[in-house]
């Protein structure tokens, strides 16, 4: 463990470590090393792997090895500190390419040629310089456009569970997303963290079939890659996205899947460092850490580009209060929740009606954006569907026959809402008008008087009058 060093082109090279523990290596007697500096660790055969400095004092540096510590030994390890934090060369030419989790070519092509190298940690956007996102993105999916509209510059995660079709849903969103007035295509930055090869395969195939591959960049840190590498993958992807959006003026859709795997890697490193664990063993700074990823979405005043983020995460045992979905929900601007119950009943996309939410919808829809009735329609659908859930609970107990006429109508409405409004084909691209019409159609299965949230003027304009008269008003008159 006697550290000797020889001078090379990159500066000092240290031989030997005092401790190797999980993904961490402790290098002693260092000189002139910075916090978060990138380190190249060479194993006995001289093969390099990357690491970064997590903690540093006058005498020692704790290095997190991104590509695993298998095969490293205290005696033979060489460490070379590269004199800067982790940087990614960024360029427009990276579109259409595939890279590994650290941004190195994985498609056999050459490295990205660029003089522009960016710190992957990025810098916080000044809230004063942000532009409030409000352009409606039509995804062609009624459950999203009608009820939880996505706007350009938003971060809207998909909360899913194992076995649910989140990949298909997000691929459909990417395929169909467009703005109402402009014919601008989104560039796609895709980061896969800890997902299986076939999932990666699915997305590549999907992008190829839809012709999106040429404007997509993919970063893969797959399930068999060292888990620590994943900590950098979303940052690498977002660094490129920022370049494309704010330097090249493109509109970028960023897909991050699966954030649960990312958080697990974070927990792994935290545990190895002997940190005090928080809820379910996740580190106490999980919120800040996730924020440093999710907050890299948005628009900037004076820049034409935008970053819209769709992180995907699987909720362990479908538990929405698990720290990962919970903290994500606190940072992102809403969530699209997939529901197992709907899925099992064959509804695609199985987007849960009530817990899904888009916080920015209020500013991106309505008059001047989509159509005047959009916000009210969505609000009324939510309210009625919430009542359906109550009626269903009641019907389970007393039986459907015992329900009042009105409640039975609500059940019908619920059925129509799920099977006609939510349910659609995987390749069905509905325009916003179609979605809204469908919404009114479904809502018109209920009597007018039940629609408290809709003003008379809107009712007159959009409510589909049915042949039968509303219940209870006239027939009871003579009672």
């Amino acid at each position, binding site marked *: 463990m006697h550290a000797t060093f020889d001078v090379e082109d990159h500066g000092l090279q240290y031989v030997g470590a005092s401790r190797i523990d999980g993904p961490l290596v402790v290098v002693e007697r260092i000189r002139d090393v910075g916090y978060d500096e990138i380190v190249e660790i060479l194993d006995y055969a001289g093969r390099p792997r990357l690491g970064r400095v997590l903690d540093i004092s006058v005498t020692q540096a704790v290095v997190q090895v991104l590509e695993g510590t298998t095969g490293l030994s205290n005696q033979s390890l060489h460490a070379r500190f590269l004199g800067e934090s982790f940087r990614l060369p960024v360029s427009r030419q990276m579109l259409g390419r595939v890279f590994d989790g650290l941004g190195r070519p994985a498609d056999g092509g050459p490295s990205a040629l660029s003089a522009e190298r960016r710190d992957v940690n990025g810098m916080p956007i000044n809230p004063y310089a942000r532009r409030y996102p409000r352009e409606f993105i039509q995804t062609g999916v009624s459950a999203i456009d009608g009820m939880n509209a996505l706007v350009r510059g938003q971060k809207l995660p998909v909360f899913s569970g194992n076995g649910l079709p989140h990949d298909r849903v997000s691929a459909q969103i990417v395929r169909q997303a467009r703005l109402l007035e402009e014919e601008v295509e989104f560039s796609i930055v895709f980061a896969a963290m800890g997902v299986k090869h076939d999932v990666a395969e699915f997305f590549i195939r999907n992008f190829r079939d839809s012709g999106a591959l040429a404007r997509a960049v993919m970063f893969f840190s797959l399930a068999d890659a060292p888990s620590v590498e994943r900590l950098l993958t979303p940052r690498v992807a977002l660094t490129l996205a920022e370049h494309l959006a704010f330097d090249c003026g493109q509109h970028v859709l960023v897909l991050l899947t699966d954030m649960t795997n990312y958080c697990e890697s974070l927990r792994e490193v935290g545990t190895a460092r002997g940190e005090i664990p928080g809820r379910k063993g996740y580190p106490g700074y999980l919120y800040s850490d996730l924020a440093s990823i999710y907050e890299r979405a948005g628009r900037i005043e004076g820049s034409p580009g935008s970053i819209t983020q769709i992180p995907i995460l699987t909720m362990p045992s479908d538990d929405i209060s698990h720290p990962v979905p919970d903290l994500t929900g606190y940072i992102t601007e809403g969530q699209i929740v997939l529901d197992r119950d709907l899925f099992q009943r064959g509804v695609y996309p199985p987007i849960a009606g009530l817990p899904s939410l888009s916080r920015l919808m209020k500013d991106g829809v309505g008059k001047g954006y989509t159509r005047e009735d959009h916000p009210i329609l969505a609000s009324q659908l939510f309210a009625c569907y919430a009542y359906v859930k109550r009626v269903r609970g009641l019907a389970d107990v007393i039986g459907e026959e*015992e329900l009042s006429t009105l409640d039975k109508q609500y059940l019908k409405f619920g059925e129509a809402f799920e099977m006609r409004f939510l349910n659609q084909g995987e390749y069905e691209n509905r325009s916003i008008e179609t979605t809204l019409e469908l919404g009114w159609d479904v809502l018109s299965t209920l009597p007018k008087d039940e629609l408290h949230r809709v003003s008379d003027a809107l009712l007159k304009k959009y409510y589909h009058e049915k042949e039968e008269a509303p219940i209870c008003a006239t027939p009871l008159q003579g009672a």
Partner: protein
Amino acid sequence: MTIVTKTAEPVVTRISGPIVTAVGMYAAQMYEVVQVGSLGLVGEVVRLVGDYATIQVYEDTTMLKPGAPVRCTGAPLSVWLGPGLVGSIYDGIQRPLPGIEARSGAWIRRGEKVDPLDTEKRWTFEPLISSGEMVTAGQAIGLVVETPLVNHRIMTPPDISGTVRSIVDKGDYGLLDPLAVIETATGPREVTMLQRWPVRVPRPISERLRITEPLITGQRIIDTFFPIGKGGAAAIPGGFGTGKTITQHQLAKWSDAEIIVFIGCGERGNEMTDVLREFPELKDPRSGRPLMERTILIANTSNMPVAAREVSIYTGITLAEYYRDMGFSVAVFADSTSRWAEALRELAARLEEMPAEEGFPASLPTRLAQFYERGGAVTTLAGEQASVSIVGAVSPPGGDFSEPVTQHTRRFIRCFWALDTELANARHYPSIHWLHSYSEYVEDVASWWKKEAPDWIDLRTEALTLLQREDRLQQIVKLVGPDVLPDGQRLILFIAEIIKDGFLAQSAFDENDMYCTPERQVMLLRIILTLYRRGRDLIQGGVPLARIRSLGCVPHLLRAKTAFGNRELEKLTELEGRIMEETETLAKEYAKEATPICTPLLT
């Protein structure tokens, strides 16, 4: 431990995220501000051991190296107090965000130093005293019109009192120009427009007062059901998506406080942008002026450094205290205190403190208490009545109110607005749950309401009782359905629905509904309860509930909150008349029929 007497130049010895250790710090003070490294990153000393100091750094420490120089400033972390604060937006350590943008563009670069206030700008100062007069600490020596809504009083600092030796004439002065010289017991002292005050020290007051006046927010469920007093403290806990931020924004927009301090602490960047975009356009319902003319924003979003998040709460409350000292009623909105507590936890963990509940430091309750206790109704040093009200949002993990931050917060607030996921899912906003929330200020503000509306307290009690009974009845309904209940009980269900939809649910985006005057609140509730009382009588007279439900006035009652504005109270009176009329007709109709002695309550 050996006592070190000779200190070398202070240098960094260890870096772990935002926590940096430095040696050569024997002379440093606790909570002194230091500048770390060649970039001069701002930090604060949080622990001193021998010659070593632990420093909490407010900026990202990437590529900082051991051996980097540390410069002590000799002063604790302080804010600048003076004209120009109102309408500003600051980060957690009072750096103006527009100023940072001007220097480093859209991204916040490290080591940027911008003065919190513009020292070049000249303000018109109008003296209120003349030389030879005695002034006490905190007394106003002159006025500056800061915005059309804020008459900024230039006060003597809390440690200066004595005879005025000289004072300038009315005219334009900069922040640093001497305005007056006061002969104090310890010698002459100059007074300028600018004061500095350490953020962690509460500004002194003369005495604390009992809370007597409500903070009117224009939100029906708050003002009528769970009022907060001016000088009170309230918490809004709720899981994600329950509308904490929207509720906070609503309060910041419509509260009748004279100064609003909004602290965005570890929340979303776009939300602060939303406030920035919206507040200059919205008009104060009382003065008709833009809301920004009475608002100070502190934005330390979730991706900005965590140590600055910890201090942002103190920065905000210190600014609030300063305006309170001028005699204003100030309201502080902190969104969210949970993120602040998490910053405490993160820093405590880096300091290797022993954790208490869920990893939070054992000092969490003390810190929360210190924060909420800086609010209150007071007599200022100058002898005026003023107040600081505090509303803190709490974001409990998983929406579980039994977690430490919610639990400890409950001990130091007297008003609890519990947000409910189920209500939010049904898009019933504000999703404040009427059964889980409470306010201990009801008694305190009752006398104020008595002057406004003598029946306020009775209406409130009656409505809450109805909602409670409805909750119990719903348990039965869940089991057997509503049809088996007698009409008298089904009437309660019916009226409770009207209270919920027609009174408690309030749109933040509807022009008529977003702000509801106290007068209109009481009228609306009174009309709904009129229908209840009339309905009760009718049912006793044998009228079936279905007839009451289908009265022509019912849909109008449900839409009254949005249909009529605050100035159209006569429309509400008309509606009340209509209810009386229609129920009267119904009563007459059944009075003729109901000749049999006994009408069984069968439907």
